[in-house]
């Protein structure tokens, strides 16, 4: 997907003024957060579970190569073909090649953020293949020609009226704004494709080294059909998704749906191991697993390595006050919110996404919510350090930090500057003690006054034995 993250500030500004988006975001607000809070509270040893799962993810990452090779060996033994792709282009080429060689005309897809990342649909469509997104949210967005704005609830930015408009045009049926009726309409529209597609493409929430298994976690049942009905099943997933054992999965699945939507478990979990077995009446004849790097291995051994633990639950964005105000599209690439503010610069380059690590107050809600204890604010700060060291921030900002650093490390100078700063600012504040405009600080004063300083510094008053 094309990167627009360098325009974060402008895009965020547009989103703040988008009344429809703001109203749609308000409707969703709180549902995820309250649901998660309730599920976590009734679980009991939640902190122990978080620690356990963070540790098991770290254990794999510390031996990622060996786990991947063990996965490959077991998956191959069960009849799957494992492909490796270093880049988005390579991954797309592999999938397109499988499709073309097998005469595939229609592909059904279940939700896969990796496929969004590598823009797989565009590539397949260019090869003349029809691609049908089957997750309801993704289906809506395919009709709207939009990328997802949330990694779990891709169409969270759309209202039912907007969905109704899209369906009316696509399905040639009377317009309907009843949500259950819209859901049924999508089910009916997609049924034939589910049953007749030549190839199913899914992502994988995890892949299991022990058994060579790939798996999907869904509520809708779409992934379960995509991985079962077509004669070819292709999994596109990131190299960091590997875990050790079925037991590790059992622990992680206690975290994932609770963190994502406050459910104890999703309605469906499909663990897929290899191809159709002798005598089976369902299941694919060919199974392909494409392991995608596309920047992931760069994180191994780096400051950002904890990001590889991410299980894509979306809790960080659900709890992020910045995300909740600007929505996912402002972030300009596939992954929004705090996890996106780390992943996007890491994958597409810090110079292309410079505002993202700065789009945080470090309020810390994401770090508390993250089920695998990724220290997201710390990782964003690491990226800010890289920006500082590589002089990637605007000139004015760098100059301000330099001048501030010079002053605060020299107490005499600092006392002098703050004495006069307090006086001048107090004078500017006037009788109402409010500063309406300050040069260099219009980011603040555009929407807020600056309450003026009292006039004398604490330091001076204290020295005089005052007050």
């Amino acid at each position, binding site marked *: 997907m094309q990167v627009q993250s360098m325009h974060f500030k402008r895009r965020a500004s547009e989103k703040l003024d988008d009344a429809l988006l703001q109203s749609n975001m308000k409707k969703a607000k709180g549902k995820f957060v309250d649901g998660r809070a309730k599920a976590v509270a*009734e*679980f009991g*040893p939640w902190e122990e*579970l978080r620690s356990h799962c963070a540790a*098991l993810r770290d254990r794999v990452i510390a*031996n990622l*190569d*060996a*786990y991947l*090779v*063990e996965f490959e060996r077991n998956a191959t033994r*069960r009849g799957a073909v494992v492909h*490796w*792709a*270093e880049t988005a282009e390579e991954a797309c080429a592999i999938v397109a090649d499988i499709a073309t060689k097998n005469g595939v005309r229609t592909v059904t897809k279940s939700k896969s953020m990796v496929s969004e990342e590598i823009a797989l649909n565009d590539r397949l469509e260019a090869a003349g293949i029809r691609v049908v997104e089957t997750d309801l*949210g993704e289906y*809506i967005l395919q009709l709207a020609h939009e990328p997802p704005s949330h990694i779990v609830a*891709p169409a969270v930015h*759309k209202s039912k009226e907007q969905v109704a408009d899209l369906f009316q045009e696509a399905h040639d049926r009377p317009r309907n704004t009843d*949500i259950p009726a*819209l*859901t*049924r309409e999508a089910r009916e529209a*997609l049924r034939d494709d*589910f*049953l007749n597609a030549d190839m199913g493409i899914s992502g994988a929430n995890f892949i299991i*080294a*022990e058994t060579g*298994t790939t798996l999907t976690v869904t*509520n*809708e*049942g*779409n992934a*379960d059909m995509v*991985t*079962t*009905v077509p004669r070819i099943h292709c999994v596109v997933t990131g*190299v960091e998704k590997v875990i*050790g*054992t079925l*037991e590790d*999965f*059992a*622990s992680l699945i206690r975290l994932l749906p609770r963190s994502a939507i406050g459910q*104890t*478990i999703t*309605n*469906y979990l*499909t*663990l897929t*191991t290899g*191809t159709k*077995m*002798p*005598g089976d*009446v*369902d*299941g694919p004849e060919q199974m392909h697993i494409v392991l995608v790097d596309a920047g992931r*291995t760069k994180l191994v051994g*780096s400051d950002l390595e904890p990001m590889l633990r991410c299980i894509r639950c979306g809790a960080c964005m659900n709890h992020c006050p910045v995300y909740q105000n600007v929505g996912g599209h402002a972030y300009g690439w596939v992954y929004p919110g705090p996890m996106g503010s780390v992943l996007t610069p890491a994958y597409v380059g810090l110079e292309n996404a410079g505002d993202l690590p700065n789009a945080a107050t470090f309020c810390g809600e994401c770090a508390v919510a993250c089920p695998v204890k990724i220290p997201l604010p710390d990782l964003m700060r690491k990226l800010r350090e890289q920006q500082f060291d590589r002089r990637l921030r605007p000139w004015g900002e760098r100059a301000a930090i330099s001048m501030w650093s010079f002053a605060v490390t020299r107490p005499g100078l600092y006392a002098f500057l703050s004495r006069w700063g307090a006086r001048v600012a107090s004078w500017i504040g006037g009788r109402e003690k409010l500063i309406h405009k300050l040069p260099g600080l219009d980011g603040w004063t555009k929407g807020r006054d600056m309450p003026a300083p009292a006039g004398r510094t604490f330091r001076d008053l204290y020295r005089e034995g005052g007050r």
Partner: protein
Amino acid sequence: MGARENILRRIRAAQGRAGAEPTEGEIAAVRADIARRVAGPLPPFARPADRLAQFLKECDRLSTTHGQVASERGVPAEVSRYLASQGLPPQVVGWPAYAGLDWASAGITYDARPATGSDHAGLTGCFCAIAETGTALLLSSPAEPKVTALLPETHVCIVREARLVDTMEDAFALMRAEVGEPPRATFFVSGPSRTADIEQTIVIGAHGPYRVHVIVVS
């Protein structure tokens, strides 16, 4: 093989190891780690005093309805009662294992074949069921196709009480003991399909079944 080699080499270099392939020793260490099967913490309700009660409580929470019968012979009557209560026709497509039950007396037409997109109700058994989450575990096999649980709008699932386990870990242990490796599809069903993709409003019945009815055989 270029991509594979480069990816593995990059990981190894970042972790201070040479070469593009893990050594036999490293693979052995991973296998030893896997064999340890470190268990994670469980919530208190994962070890319930009354396993069946816990299972049914979770079924309720997931909108799975349930009935209980004393033996498999009682299944057809319960299916008939259930279908009638939902206003559904007395036709079922199901796994061959249940074809021998007396469906005719209960007024039900039973087709022992994999379900297709046009069937209304599918009947399956399950390998075992999990009390912690109200989940049925289905393992695919020639006589136990997954599609029957997925394509029809109604899924009726027979759970033998003796096959009820506490947790997913227990289910995996049972699978290893009785089946060995996971079959092609290891399918966990916890209630009817749902979505909240439009305005975060939960709708029961997305692409999978609208109704899941569990029949517990004591």
